[in-house]
């Protein structure tokens, strides 16, 4: 459940920092962009590397 871990991670980060998230949960493809939309954090990009989804999120 990457979203829960993601929320926990960003608590320790600062505005402007970029987080690189790797997830093997196929739901994350839609979950991470949805999380970004709702929380106002910017999704810089997303890649699929085999079974791993890579996300780059910039903290507001």
């Amino acid at each position: 459940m990457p979203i829960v871990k993601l929320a926990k991670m960003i608590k320790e980060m600062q505005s402007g920092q970029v987080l690189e998230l790797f997830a093997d949960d196929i739901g994350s493809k839609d979950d991470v962009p949805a999380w970004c939309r709702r929380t106002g954090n910017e999704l810089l990009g997303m890649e699929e590397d085999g079974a791993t989804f890579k996300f780059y999120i910039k903290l507001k």
Partner: protein
Amino acid sequence: MTMADKMVMVVSEGSFDKAMMPLIMGNTAASMGMEVHVFFTFFGLKLLKKGVKPKLNGMMRPFTGMIERKMKKLKIPGFAEMMAQARDLDVKLYACSTSMALMGVGKEELIDGVKILGASAFLDIAADSKVNLFIG
């Protein structure tokens, strides 16, 4: 700063699957910045008892271990861990006062951090929530 969207769930069953569903949805919603309230009523009350280990219902009961092992493989946290996570994420847990009287559950049997509410107080919380789910 805008007000957080509210999510309310009512849980009326205490089986393993009915326990995991509100926790997965609730913890996810809380991670997305929603204010989550979960109201446990009737058989759902047993999920708020100290030391509870929920099982699948009826004929499926012996398969609970199998599902738990599968979840572990998929790195989905188990019930106890999800409850701890919910606490960390400030998910609010409530026990229905009417059900407590009906099912003979005493306050001392419940885990810490549970608020006891009646239907009116609950409806007051639910009335302006964005997401309202019934799990049962």
